């Protein structure tokens, strides 16, 4: 039996979403852009899905653009803004690579974060002001809603105030890929101009992303061709994927209040269990500062790669930081930006919970992680160095 504690990497698809896809794979396979009855049926499915997604996101249906993945949405937002408006792209240092690498690719500006991984609003104001003083325009500021590694939540209303004051012409984008399961997106969308989602993070299929262009198109498209998605994103619609995305998003939205409560309890049980079983388990962020499904810890006296190997052998799925192109774990740029010491970051473990997580998963997770850590520490022959003040925050 596999204990899956890696929902932030990809969540299992919801059965209803799988069922919803099948007719569009088997029977309703026509190209939604076609001119016959068969095509119109597929087109209707795409348009209805757009309405349903817009309702959850609190935006107009015509502002919803279906893309090929979250990374494409992020790229379209930033590259599209830079191409349309020129000027500088800005983001905090803890963004997902799908944002951070794009901003750096365009020669943009990266700003720091606080110890909880949230964008440093004072530094953001200073940097935007300095760019303005230097006569440089800012095309886009991109601040993630929820961090994918440690689960911290940015206050996008506050970010918006800073951006409007210091870079009034800049667009504000949020990578909300990790937010859909935890935040009411109707409370997020109004604060931003652009918002990116990825379906497979909330029980939809891989290969579908969403970009919300709040208030209409103000950026250049990335993919140019047949003019689908109102010329915002060319390429044949992934009808089955889009339908399943709408189904999964609606279910996630409906379950959110109860799931937030249920999973926060399980997450607390997981981390409490580890801290009871082991010394030197540091909860990276206080529980009040992160989303319910996020259980990120740094464990003294072990290396993440070794721990993940033993967890894998015991059929427990978790992760450490993001992987590079070779598949190797990279030292976490998120923990580094938050000021977590390198030594501590070596023992990072990200466990992430989601809609299929049960109390059995949590109990088994505690047992297996505790046994693996104990084995690694015993073998290394080095007892963890305990320090009463060592905990980052909790």
């Amino acid at each position, binding site marked *: 039996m596999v204990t899956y504690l890696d929902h932030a990497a990809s969540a299992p698809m919801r059965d209803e979403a799988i069922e919803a896809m099948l007719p569009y794979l088997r029977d309703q396979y026509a190209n939604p852009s076609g001119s016959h009855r068969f095509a119109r049926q597929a087109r209707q499915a795409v348009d209805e899905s757009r309405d349903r997604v817009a309702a959850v996101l609190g935006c107009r249906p015509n502002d919803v653009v279906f893309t090929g993945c979250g990374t494409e949405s992020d790229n379209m937002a930033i590259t599209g803004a830079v191409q349309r408006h020129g000027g500088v792209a800005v983001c905090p240092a803890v963004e997902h690579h799908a944002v951070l690498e794009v901003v750096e690719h365009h020669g943009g500006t990266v700003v720091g974060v606080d110890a909880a991984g949230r964008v440093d609003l004072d530094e953001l104001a200073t940097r935007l002001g300095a760019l303005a003083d230097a006569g440089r325009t800012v095309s886009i500021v991109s601040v993630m809603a929820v961090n994918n590694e440690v689960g911290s939540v940015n206050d996008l209303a506050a970010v918006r105030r800073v951006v409007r004051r210091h870079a009034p012409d800049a667009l504000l984008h949020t990578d909300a890929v990790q937010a859909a399961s935890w935040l009411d997106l109707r409370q997020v969308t109004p604060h931003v101009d652009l918002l990116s989602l990825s379906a497979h993070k909330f029980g939809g299929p891989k290969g579908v992303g969403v970009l919300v262009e709040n208030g209409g198109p103000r950026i250049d498209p990335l993919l140019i061709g047949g003019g689908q998605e109102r010329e915002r994103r060319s390429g044949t619609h992934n009808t089955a994927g889009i339908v399943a995305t709408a189904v999964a998003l609606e279910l996630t939205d409906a379950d959110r209040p109860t799931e937030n409560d249920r999973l926060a309890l399980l997450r607390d049980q997981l981390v409490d269990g580890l801290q009871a079983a082991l010394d030197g388990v540091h909860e990276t962020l206080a529980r009040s500062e992160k989303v319910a499904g996020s259980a990120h810890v740094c464990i003294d006296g072990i290396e993440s*790669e*070794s721990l993940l*190997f*033993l967890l*894998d052998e015991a059929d427990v799925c978790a992760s450490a930081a993001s*992987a*590079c*192109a*070779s*598949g*190797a*774990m*990279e*030292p976490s740029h998120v923990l580094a930006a938050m000021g977590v010491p390198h030594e501590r970051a070596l023992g990072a473990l990200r466990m992430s919970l989601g809609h299929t997580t049960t109390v059995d998963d949590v109990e088994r997770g505690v047992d297996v992680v505790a046994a693996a850590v104990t084995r*690694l520490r015993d*073998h*290394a022959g080095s007892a963890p160095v305990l320090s009463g003040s060592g905990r980052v925050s909790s």
Partner: protein
Amino acid sequence: MKVMCAMSGGVDSSVAALLLLEAGHEVVGVTMKLWGGDSDTGCCSVSDVDDARRVAQQLGIDHLVFNFGDDFDTHVVDPYVAAHAAGVTPNPCIECNRTVKFARLAERADLLGFDAVATGHHANIGRESDGTLTLLRGDDPAKDQSYVVHMLDQAQLARTMFPVGGMHKSEVRERAAQIDLRTADKPDSQDVCFITSTGGRTSFLGDRIPFHRADVVDLDGARLGEVESVEMVTIGQRKGIGLPGGGPKRYVVDVDTTTRIVTVGADSDLLRNDLVVHSMAWVDHVVSGDVRVQASAHGATQRAVIEAVDERPGAVTVTWAEPQRRIAPGQSVVFYDLTDRRVLGGGIAD
């Protein structure tokens, strides 16, 4: 046994994994991510990792990637750069074997419950009647790699396997082709993994250390010309030292990065009667007396007598049977028995 097979994405380690499986071992393939910069196979050698992963899938074994980039920088790349700055010519592949592959990876394998680490090196491990383990040349003389794994001691050999050491390269490729492994026809890797064929050593080092112009002088101190970067000059070098052609062949016989002087002379001026080798690692016990000596990866061996240097622990004096060309400081020097088959130990030329 439970064996961790280091899979580089080449054909030798692919077949090593295959042979381990056939021998009934429990095998997990591991590719080390060592270098994060440019390489001839893409950033982080991603296409090599892809090849290793696909071979592992074909064999039905698990495959993992371990990131030892920090260790590689600290123990291989940084010393390589520092050595060049000091006018020394190191062998980074040997340092990688010494500090990463047979140290960091082997320790992790031990930690994770593996009985041994296997690699695709062409070398053999034997056992004497008294239980002593021996490190022997690979069976394919053209591909023998005992030189680059000479630093393994008894404890390491006991936990190391070289499954393809008894095969010729053509057999290795045949075995890979028989089961359609994608690496069957892959060319052997050449040179240093972190130096690209387009940029070369000059570009790599030029990005990391300042180059200094140096005078080129003859043995009497007469100035003959100059070189742009003394850090790139190696003992024994003949080309690229800024001297006009046509005259007698001149070789670099000495490099001094402090005074920035490159001394050149005739071939015969390179000849030496002896050599001191430091940082010795012995396969079993300390050896003195008659040996054969190899001073490059695929070089011929020469007869010599070795004896410990009294006042320098870990150093030996090599007295050549016949005068030999000077060996560049930093090169690995490996001692074999008189059959030229068994590794006794090795160290680094003064």
